[in-house]
């Protein structure tokens, strides 16, 4: 394999791994902050116990998220020096702002939160948690702004052989970034809600700490219901914007080969990239794709054949990741709505609790699918329409990257195993085991 392929694999592996941990940090920080606020306001010990128990799981997850994030910032330099030199004027400043304006606060306060129980008042300690949660999410917002620029580059001019910043406000208020922020941040809350509800369901099924876990479950249910419905509605807006600015991605998402008016969505389709067609198309819903893309059942949707082969994303992966994301997103909303209806009779519905417990990994899968769609669907471009991924890679020896890729797989594999083992262990132990 060449440097390009190895670097792509390495970036894929390290990003996906990193993003197993990030959304839980983003969402759970807010939920723990809510619990701690309840405690600060009421002095009710159950809320303190909740803060401590969920806080402990949060911290284990946080540690892995933090350390794997460092690698990502530096990889732009190590593996994608062509990219860094070409767009650093814009992209670099967003990363630098993220570190200075958000990540510092998050990382300084995490230490204060963990070690400051006896040094700060109840109220001040809760404020620290809110600032932490705010800073984590602000961090994510800057990173998504940077990614949004790769999806839809704005506010630049090509001068001196590189992309130079001309309009900072346009970069910060980029529509694509805003849509991504409004999608990913609530989706992180949704993931955290499932995490809390799933673990609570495990204990409720065993009749352990029923009051504690019912309260936890309900908090997850409220937040999760709002988030799951929001993510679907916002996702629709997002798709319409993609139709406008990344038509090749949209065509690949639905595996639409020919430009079609009244374009349908097929319940089942099997893309056949070689022959530029779908091997199987079953269950057409006429006009639905036109409606989803343009808000009009008879609108024309561009097909893949409009684009030269060298400018099409890998169809199968884009198509599948979109399907997985949408199917799971629908499932999440359905589960939440069912939960709302049976919220007072949870203990009488063990099937639901069991299903919720088994569903813990699904939002992680949905997040990953969403990112595969966003990033693979943008190919062959690293910056859409501006720079190809192949032109972005560093002039380094493939052997170096091969070694680091293997090392990442080994080290991250180990970290992931240990991290999830510890989360699982402490989740099963329950609130009693959280030492004072």
């Amino acid at each position, binding site marked *: 394999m060449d440097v390009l392929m190895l670097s792509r694999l390495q970036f894929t592996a390290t990003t996906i791994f990193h993003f197993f941990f990030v959304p839980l940090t983003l969402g759970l920080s807010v939920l723990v902050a809510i619990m701690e606020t309840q405690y600060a306001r009421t002095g009710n010990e159950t809320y303190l116990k909740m803060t401590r128990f969920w806080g402990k799981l949060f911290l*284990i997850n*946080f*540690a*892995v998220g*933090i*350390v*794997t994030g*460092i690698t990502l*910032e*530096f990889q*732009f*330099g*190590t*593996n994608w*020096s*062509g990219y*860094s*030199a070409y*767009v*650093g*004027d*814009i*992209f*670099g*400043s967003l*990363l*630098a*702002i*993220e*570190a*200075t*304006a958000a990540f*510092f*606060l998050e*990382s*300084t*306060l995490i*230490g*204060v939160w*963990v*070690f*400051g129980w*006896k*040094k700060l008042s109840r109220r001040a300690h809760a404020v620290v948690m809110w600032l932490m949660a705010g800073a984590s999410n602000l961090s994510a917002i800057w990173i998504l702004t940077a990614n949004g620029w790769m999806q839809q580059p704005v506010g630049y001019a090509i001068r001196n052989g*590189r992309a*130079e*910043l001309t309009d900072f406000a346009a970069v910060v208020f980029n529509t694509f970034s805003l849509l991504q922020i409004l999608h990913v941040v609530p989706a992180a809350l949704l993931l955290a809600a499932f995490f809390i509800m799933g673990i609570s369901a495990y204990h409720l099924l065993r009749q352990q700490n029923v009051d504690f876990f019912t309260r936890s479950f309900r908090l997850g249910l409220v937040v999760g219901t709002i988030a799951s419905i929001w993510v679907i509605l916002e996702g629709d807006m997002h798709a319409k914007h993609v139709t406008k600015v990344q038509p090749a991605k949209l065509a690949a998402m639905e595996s639409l080969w020919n430009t079609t008016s009244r374009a349908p969505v097929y319940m089942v389709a099997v893309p056949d990239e070689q022959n530029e067609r779908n091997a199987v198309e079953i269950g057409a819903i006429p006009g639905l794709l036109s409606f989803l893309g343009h808000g009009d059942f008879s609108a024309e949707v561009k097909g893949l054949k409009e684009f030269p082969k060298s400018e099409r994303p890998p169809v199968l992966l884009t198509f599948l990741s979109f399907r997985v994301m949408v199917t799971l997103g629908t499932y999440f909303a359905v589960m939440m709505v069912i939960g709302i209806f049976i919220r007072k009779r949870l203990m009488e519905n063990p099937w639901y609790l069991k299903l919720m417990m088994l569903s813990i990994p699904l939002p992680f899968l949905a997040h990953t699918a969403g990112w595969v769609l966003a990033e693979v669907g943008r190919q062959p471009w690293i910056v859409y329409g501006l720079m190809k991924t192949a032109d972005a890679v*560093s*002039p*380094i020896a493939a052997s*170096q990257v091969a*070694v*680091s890729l293997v*090392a990442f797989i080994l*080290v991250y594999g180990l*970290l992931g195993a*240990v991290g999830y083992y*510890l989360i699982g*262990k*402490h989740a099963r132990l329950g609130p009693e085991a959280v030492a004072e």
Partner: protein
Amino acid sequence: MLLESIWFFLWGLLWAVYFMTDGFDLGIGSLLPFLGKTEEDRRVMVNATGPLWDGNQVWLLSAGGVTFAAFPRVYAVMFSSLYSALMLILFALILRGVAFEFRGKVDGPGWRKLWDACIFIGSFAPALLFGVAFANIFQGIPIDQKGVYQGTLFTLLNPYGLIGGVLFVLLFLVHGALWLSAKTEGELQTRAASAAAKIWPVEVAVAVVFLATSFFTTRLYANYLANPLLFAVILLTVAALFGIRVFLAKKAFFKAWFASALTIVGATFYGVIGLFPNMFPSSMNPAWSLTAHNASSTQLTLKIMLVVVIIFVPIVLAYQAWAYNLFKTKVTLEDLAY
């Protein structure tokens, strides 16, 4: 021209603050197997940096981010040229970070031993490699006209690079031992203080060797000779270095730590001033060097980033100072969190 120069020194400052803050974390981690005789000692050591190391580490990300934002070509060429060294640093820091969090989560001596080993490697390796990398930057890196690196990881392991690595390790060991002396009590404190006193003369000796070798293998002194007033920076650094010994003898450990912090900042600026305006000098041809002027971002980006830095860095310093102050008391067995 002016903006680029301001950014050059801000870039140096961020690295200096990183070494000053995370330096003692790396030092304590490297001292863990030697000073931590019992499990209690080791827990106290880890908790002595516990509330602070994460915030300290962000100075590294900030230094990296600012290199990317203000000098994208330097970022691109430097990080791809130093690929393997940088990857080793990253893996080490990853292990160190999770080890802090993981070591206390399962109760078993084998489990803790494993993560203590990770803390040691994860602290010692970055200390050494940062020194090797910066010394090599001081003397020049074999990059060609296009900024493509013409060497391997082993090219960096030359005598001058290794002296730089050893110097960094020693700076951080003393820095960490002093922090421990200030933060602990009893036998561990005695051991830490005596370690600082024993390592200090070696630190001085290697610093002298480094300063002397720099004269022959680098062009760092050119700026100093052109403007002799700059020698004051070196003198101040040496004064701070001796200040460590004075305060240590008086058992004024926090003051000794401050002197050590000043030494580290001074040592970083010794190199940064000598480099100016070079940021990544080519040893193959000086004309191929990356400088603050030929590798910077646009004036617009530099201006925006300057505003960001002027607003946020003082805020960051303020809340980090608050956090340091909150945790200035001795680490006791009652309030261990790791």
